[in-house]
């Protein structure tokens, strides 16, 4: 409970003693490149293979002649949009971006760079953390959309190249009884997960004490706590919104 209170106070301090908007615009652009653009490669790889494997495994399980082949891509589509793209990729996001945020802030803390900002009269929380959270909120939903597309495309390639499903059947399944709300649900989840990963990781890094060893511990703890928070939020959002 003490940690939760400290975390909430930390979030509140993001919005006091802010710098000029121009300063934040520059910082958010820099952070968006680090958080978003630099994550495209890993997201592309993971999501493509995730879609490909989901297609093959669904095909393996649906062997009944009573079930049409297009069900394979229908399953891939719903799994991707509802769970794989927003949630599983959030775990990847926590591993890549969360550990990076915690490591960066932890190192800044132990080398007194954060103290240097405070002495200059700059609200270090707002200056260092707010741009990271805003950048994560902007970039992660885009990464989720990209991951969802590449996952379904990966499934298409795996399904058609192995002969499990034809291209026409796959496209038919993707479009069959499509519920637009699922996209909105995935995007809502992505915004929540982006906030959780960036803020928890920043919190863990920001309050690092000690040396290099503790920075490593803070990074690990950031990823672990982010993953737990993602899974809890995933369950709560599913209960509330579906």
């Amino acid at each position, binding site marked *: 409970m003490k940690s939760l209170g400290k975390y909430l106070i930390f979030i509140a301090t993001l919005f006091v003693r802010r*710098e000029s908007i121009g300063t934040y615009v520059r910082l958010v652009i820099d952070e968006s490149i680090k958080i978003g653009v630099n994550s495209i490669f890993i997201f592309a790889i993971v999501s493509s293979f995730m879609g490909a494997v989901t297609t093959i495994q669904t095909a393996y399980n649906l062997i009944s002649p009573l079930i049409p082949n297009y069900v394979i891509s229908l399953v891939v589509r719903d799994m991707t949009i509802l769970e794989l793209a927003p949630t599983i990729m959030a775990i990847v996001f926590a591993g890549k971006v969360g550990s990076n945020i915690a490591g960066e802030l932890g190192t*800044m803390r132990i080398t007194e760079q954060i103290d240097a900002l405070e002495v*200059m009269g700059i609200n270090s929380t707002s200056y260092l953390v707010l741009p990271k959270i805003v950048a994560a909120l902007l970039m992660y939903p885009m990464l989720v959309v990209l991951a969802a597309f590449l996952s379904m495309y990966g499934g298409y390639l795996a399904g058609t190249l192995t002969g499990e499903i034809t291209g026409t059947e796959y496209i038919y399944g993707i479009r069959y009884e499509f519920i637009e709300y699922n996209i909105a649900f995935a995007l809502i989840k992505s915004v929540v997960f982006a906030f959780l990963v960036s803020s928890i990781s920043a919190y863990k890094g920001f309050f690092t004490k000690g040396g290099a060893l503790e920075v490593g511990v803070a990074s690990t703890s950031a990823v672990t706590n982010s993953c737990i928070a993602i899974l809890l939020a995933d369950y709560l959002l599913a209960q509330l919104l579906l």
Partner: protein
Amino acid sequence: MIEIQNISKSFDGKQILHNISGTFEKGRTNLIIGASGTGKSVLLKNIVGLVQPDEGHVLYDGRDFTSGDKALKTDVRREIGMLFQGGALFDSKNVEQNVMFPLNVLTKMSKEEKLDRVNICLEKVGLENVNKKMPSEISGGMKKRVGIARAIVNHSKYLFCDEPNSGLDPQTSIVIDNLIKEITEELSITTVVVTHDMNSVMEIGDYVMFIHQGHKLWEGNNQNIFDCNVKELEDFIFANKLMRAVRHQNHTE
């Protein structure tokens, strides 16, 4: 001028600072000395506002920094420059960007004006043609110089240095000490240096405050420090073999 009045601080029930008072005058180098773990850095952090004292006040030219409102604190902080023990340069920025940082965030100067000011400060600390180097590409002594340049770039009225000589060879230490003294006198600023280096005391100690186990035991200057009658200070001064040899020679003469 900075006045500290009855500063006390404890962490987790353990009292680190006991009722410390003193005055740091403008235009001279004020030293806080003492052995490691005596509370020097904690005192410095209380003075610059990184730590809030449990009791007591810090006054910057009469302005009560400890109990002042946020606006006053921000105003005072923007007049403070600080050199940290490890330099605390921002790893992702080069030398020029590091020195320019306070100007970028705290002023509305044009890019040309900022660049001119950065070059003046880098020249003042004896660094030229290193503008584009990253902190990882420069030596420890150069990092300290860049740290000093960054601390004075925004026309700071108060300069704080936390162990400016740690990790430096004796020659570079003297260069850094003299640079601090030179800047203090030239810019007529109030400088407070935390150190446990007796060479610094002898070189630049216009005012010296000795702290032992969180208590202020002595204050004076580098001229009268050898005349002190405080056992703890004598133990501190003459812990060094060289200082003992000097004392021995003085006695035999």
